[in-house]
């Protein structure tokens, strides 16, 4: 009897350990955990020390490390959003040098297949005589979102904090929203998630806020990382940008912050830098603002081959190695 209890205690503790390993430094841990999962095939026997939330230090095999994600919020909570907030993003095109670190960080964060770029860096040139520039484009989380309007089952919805999310447990895969989004923001899960991705995601419980695990036949897109926001952190793209080009914040607080930690007053920032929104004339009211690409410190994109070069179609799994940070 007693032994039984002991056994239970032990396994309970192990469970607890597993769940709470590496609470701090989520991003870094995420990266480690991710890599570990990818090479999890053979036991390396490597031991690492980790501190659990109770303050004690435990030793565990590094193969058991998994990125810690807090338990997801309920569906109702995920549909309501965070009270009193209005999230907003500002992207300074003068600073973006097209390195695509944001894309990579996003892909790691969301276990995305390599051909899905939730934040995609376009090479733009509006007219023959105007300057070429890089244009990172996440979902704009429009305030007048054409995508949520057409959804027949309310699987994609607008929350009170401004974020537009998709519930992939409800989505019927009609792709109306993809036709309706004027910014080609949405991706469809045409096939089953790849084996590597399933391994990476593990047995995470689903919530629209973290968009994983994915399901075949449903739609996905940039979600503004609401699960990170709930922990008081910024979306992965904003924190990873080496040029500090992506600002994120709350419009109600009138403040946005970039990766360097510098916080600015949103309204004044937009006025001073002539902030604008992409394709304003469509009336979608994006929540993402851009600052014009003036006085750049780097060469703009080479537009010669843009639109002509084609990525080879690789099976998704082969490419997974490139997507780690």
């Amino acid at each position, binding site marked *: 009897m007693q032994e039984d209890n002991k056994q239970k205690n032990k396994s309970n503790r192990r469970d607890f350990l597993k769940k709470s390993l590496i609470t701090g430094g989520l991003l870094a841990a995420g990266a480690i955990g991710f890599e570990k999962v990818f090479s999890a095939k053979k036991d390396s026997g490597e031991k690492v020390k980790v501190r659990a939330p109770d303050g004690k230090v435990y030793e565990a095999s590094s193969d058991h490390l998994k990125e810690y994600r807090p338990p997801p919020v309920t569906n109702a909570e995920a549909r309501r959003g965070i009270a009193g907030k209005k999230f907003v993003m500002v992207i300074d095109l003068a600073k973006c040098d097209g390195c695509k670190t944001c894309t990579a960080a996003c892909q790691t964060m969301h276990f995305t297949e390599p*051909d899905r770029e939730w934040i*995609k860096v*376009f*090479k*733009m040139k509006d007219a023959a005589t105007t300057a070429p520039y890089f244009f990172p*484009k996440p979902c704009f989380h429009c305030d007048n979102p*054409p995508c949520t*309007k*057409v*959804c*027949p*089952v*309310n*699987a994609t919805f607008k929350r009170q904090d401004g974020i537009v999310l998709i519930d992939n447990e*409800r*989505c*019927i*895969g*009609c*792709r*109306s929203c*993809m*036709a*309706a989004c*004027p*910014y*080609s923001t*949405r*991706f*469809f*899960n*045409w*096939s*089953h998630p790849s084996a590597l991705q399933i391994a990476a995601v593990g047995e995470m419980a689903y919530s629209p806020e973290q968009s994983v695990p994915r*399901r*075949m*036949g*449903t*739609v996905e897109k940039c979600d503004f990382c609401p699960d990170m926001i709930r922990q008081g952190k910024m979306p992965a793209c904003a924190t990873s940008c080496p040029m500090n080009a992506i600002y994120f914040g709350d419009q109600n607080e009138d403040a946005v912050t970039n990766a360097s930690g510098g916080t600015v007053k949103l309204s004044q920032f937009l006025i001073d830098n002539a902030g604008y929104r992409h*394709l304003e004339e*469509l009336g*979608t009211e994006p929540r993402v603002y851009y600052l014009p690409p003036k006085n750049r410190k780097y060469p703009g994109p080479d537009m010669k081959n*843009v*639109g002509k*070069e*084609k*990525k*080879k*179609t*690789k099976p998704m799994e082969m490419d997974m190695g490139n997507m780690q940070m």
Partner: protein
Amino acid sequence: MVNEKSNLPTGQASLKSEIETLREDCLSPTRNWGRPTQIWIGCLLIVIAWGLYCYIHQLRHGLGVTAMRDYVSWGLYISTFVFFIGISHSGTLVSAILRITRQEWRRPITRSAELLTFVSLVFGGILPIIDLGRPDRIANIVIFGRVQSPLIWDVISICTYLAGSTIFLFLPMIPDMALCRDRLTVVDSRFKKIRKWIYTKMALGWKGTKSQWHRLEWSMTIMTIVIIPVAVSVHTVVSYIFAMTLRPGWNSTVFGPYFVTGALYSGSACVILGMAAFRKMYHLEKYITLKHFNLMGQIELVLTLIYAYLNLNEYWIPAYKMATAEGHLLNDLFYGSYSIAFWTCQIGTVMVPLIIMSFPKGRNITMLTITCIIIVAGAWVKRYLIIVPTLLHPFMPIQEVPGTWSTYFPNYVEFSITAACLAGIFLFITLFAKLFPMMAVWEVEEGIKIDHDKQSAIEIRKQREEEEAKITGELSALGNETIKQPT
């Protein structure tokens, strides 16, 4: 009958014998299932079986087995859906509109038109479900349905139209079912027992009493009036799936009427093809005549004219302005990778038929059949050209994506499943024609009776006039001027 009025024999006896031949002409095809029919059904079943296999493949591995990708997220399935729903407008036009305007010549062709409506609607309705990523969650449409979504408008109006056209097809079949039921005992035919059961059930105890006729006519009148607005709404909301988006090429206020006329134009062409086919296969030359083709040809001509006019609006107005995003799309359609298909559609399947059908000679049976095949094929390609090029010209440039994303051509899975749907339509029509009369027997009978009545009325009048003339002549000869002449 309609064509050979001069040869019509008069008198009750001849009327009876004429009706008798009509009944036999209509019912005899349902009695023999010849070799060709069996082979034809076999072929259709093979196509359907292969399509089913492909669909199971698609269910297991996801829509990734099709050629659709994130840019072209709607392809052949949705184009065919729009096309089939378009075809389904045929029944309403021919049947309801001609009924309401009391066109006598409609009688022999209403049944096939209504049937075409029904089947194309059923298979048109199946296609978006095939296109769903999660068909297993279809119940969500009912559980979580949002009336604000154009897709839900579609579901509602297509279901209404389906229910309406089922009733519209079934109501005029009741007296014919009774006829089949009563005649079945006379001749030997296959599957007698099950047929007897079907006919008896479907005849709903029809005895042909006065009150039953009265009720039938009443319900037909109501259905005729109700079905027309429903039909118009169906294709209008189908167009809204596209027109409610901001995409260049779809963001157009003319889309509702454009789709409705496009539907009527392709649907009526299908009715003409159906007429030609049934006429040949079931030897109905006596009933479906050159007159019918000529009149349907005239209707088709008018519809093509309106359709051409709306095409002009749809393309010329934005082409004059060449706004940025729209301009890219139009350049591709006019001069780019879709130009051959586009111009073949516009000139080959709209302008050329227009010219051919304007001449009476172009409305003879052979010419009209060829023209209508061209029209129907063109209408199908046109749906594709409305949907796919727009998806390939989004506002954001298509950059650095796998090659398969930035082009689209349906692959074998899509072709197989679509072909299976088409085969399903043919199979349904074939089985229907082998079970039920392809003309509304009682309606044609009524037509014959009306003709007879007219004929005898003319004769009676003639006789009376002659007699009157005689009497008048005699009277005047008598010189009696106090008697008034009969009026």
